[in-house]
């Protein structure tokens, strides 16, 4: 089994006529994702690789009975594209776009309280249920079906950890990249809840990084609600306070929370082993399964 997406997920690609959108729509279809429509204003009636394009997401969802969208729209227009996705009956919208202005995301964040559509991202690699469906830009070939649920704030770190797992023959139920921006939709807690509900997920790997307090909140949530074993990893142990390290979220304020130490302590307190290296994470998972 899996969480959030599977082989039946019907996907609309917002921005399918753009360079990124077209390339990754192709990659997704090659992986087996059921891409049923594209949505690009003014391009309705066209086709991209056999996929019909609509002028609005609403039309695409209604005509093709889509239940998820992936957003490849430049940052200036991505906030609006997310709003458009949230104003439909979609179950899931995955925003890949990096560099969306924070105030646009604050407005999206408010809108999220008013919709039943789940947002993943932005600035995330997407989500993959190995062997079934991938929504986003994750390199499908490093994943393998299996029992481990993975949730991560970082794209390439996810690949690194997954690679370590897959190389040992440990597959994944679903891997979720929640994105590194300060304001995101689905967060660690949401993803952990989804994995906890999935009977096939035997262990969860959670890759966090410095900045914010999401990992601390996740640790509390694990202590209170998660029976599935969790293994953690925190990037940025050596980051100096006050410096922004790439991800907008990855800034250490120096005020005690948000540091790697506080996150690791919180996870350990919740009974979550935290690996010093990606290989140690894989070791821990191996010992659990």
């Amino acid at each position: 089994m899996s969480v959030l997406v599977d082989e039946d997920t019907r996907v609309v690609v917002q921005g399918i006529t753009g360079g990124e959108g077209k390339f990754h729509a192709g990659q997704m279809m090659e992986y087996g994702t059921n891409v049923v429509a594209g949505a690009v204003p003014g391009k309705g009636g066209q086709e991209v690789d056999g996929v019909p394009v609509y002028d609005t997401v609403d039309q695409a969802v209604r005509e093709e009975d889509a239940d998820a969208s992936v957003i490849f729209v430049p940052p200036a227009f991505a906030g609006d594209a997310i709003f458009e996705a949230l104003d439909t009956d979609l179950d899931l919208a995955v925003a890949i776009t990096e560099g969306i202005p924070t105030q646009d995301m604050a407005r999206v964040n408010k809108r999220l309280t008013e919709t039943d559509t789940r947002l993943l991202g932005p600035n995330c690699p997407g989500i993959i249920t190995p062997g079934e469906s991938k929504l986003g830009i994750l390199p499908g070939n490093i994943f393998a079906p299996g029992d481990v649920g993975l949730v991560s704030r970082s794209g390439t770190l996810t690949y690194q950890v997954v690679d370590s797992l897959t190389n040992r023959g440990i597959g994944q139920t679903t891997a979720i990249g929640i994105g590194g921006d300060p304001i995101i939709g689905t967060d660690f807690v949401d993803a952990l809840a989804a994995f906890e509900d999935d009977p096939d997920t035997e262990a969860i790997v959670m890759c966090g990084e410095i900045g914010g307090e999401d990992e601390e909140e996740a640790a509390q949530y694990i202590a209170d609600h998660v029976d599935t074993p969790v293994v953690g990893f925190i990037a940025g142990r050596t980051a100096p306070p006050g410096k922004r390290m790439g991800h907008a979220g990855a800034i250490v304020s120096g005020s005690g929370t948000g540091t790697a130490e506080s996150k690791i302590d919180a996870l350990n307190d919740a009974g979550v082993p935290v690996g010093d290296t990606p290989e140690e994470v894989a070791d821990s998972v191996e010992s659990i399964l």
Partner: protein
Amino acid sequence: MKLHEYQAKQVFADAGIPTPDSALASDVDGVLEAAADIGYPVAIKAQVQVGGRGKAGGIELVESDEEAREAAERIIGMDLKGIHVERVLVEEAVDFTNELYVGVTMDRGEGKPVAMVSTKGGVNIEEVAEEDPDAIAREHIDPSFGMQPYQARKVVFDAGVDRAVATDVAGVLSTLYDLWTSKDGSDAEINPLMVTADDEVIAADAVMNIDEDALFRQPEIAEMGEEAAGGDELEQKADEYGFDYVRLDGSVGIIGNGAGLVMTTLDLVDYYGGSPANFLDVGGGAKAERITNALDMVFSDDNVDSVVFNIFGGITRGDEVAKGINEALEAFDEIPKPVVVRLAGTNWEEGMEILNEDLVTVEQTLEDAVQRSVEYAEEGEA
């Protein structure tokens, strides 16, 4: 992106927030002229992007031409926490009876803007936040509605601002919020907002940081940003190249793709006994030229004794990375520092084939690559 004080004050003043008379000067004559226009006493304030300017000697209150000349000669051209002072703001000295703090920022935990007011202005507000958090009144703002007038009043009254100036302070806060939204601010602050004996308020300092992701729709601010650029020479270079780069004080230069993975590489360097010289994220989908620029960056840092290149391709392709590494290194007669390369993910095999193994050391795993680079750095230092 952080505006200079004089730029932020101009933005605030244009929006109707009272600010002291002031003029920018870049030499002693300019300072004296400005001071004469404004009338003594004036403050002479170094325009550099560092905290604690006052304590570091970057601000001086002067009462005469003689004092002004002395201060200008000392401050213009001085080195303030590593930054060369090129300009000063000459500003009317305001008599005040109280100093307030007024600010708007994004509360990332809540994903909402937050307005803050404190009667403990004029000092380091982060210290106040830590030592006496109740001294700062806070009000979260719903970004769909924007700040409502009652919210501005609420946070001002909750902070205990004197009723005689409460309406004016609430007005300044409302304007500050409007600026923060219309200019895509990340932080907008006035500290101190001075209260005069006759109950007027005036912004004696001005902070305006802008969301860099929003500069595309803030052309005026972006133009100010070109003037505002500052910081370490290498960090300026990184800005030009468009890298996420942070300079550290170790000896292992680190290049990778994706913030989480690069941070992990730093952590592993530390784990294996080395010390990172920098954080450098080439981002997603980097082409050969970008890789070449990244190597140029790291080689420019004299502290670097070895380099580890860690790429896990998703949208970044191993062959492009390999091509970039070859091009960068083939330009040298002698490779300046040993380079360890680890390629994984998309097209890693093609990359391995292309890579000129005479110029670099190739490792298959992240752990091996980091360990090797730490060894090289130790050798280099030795």
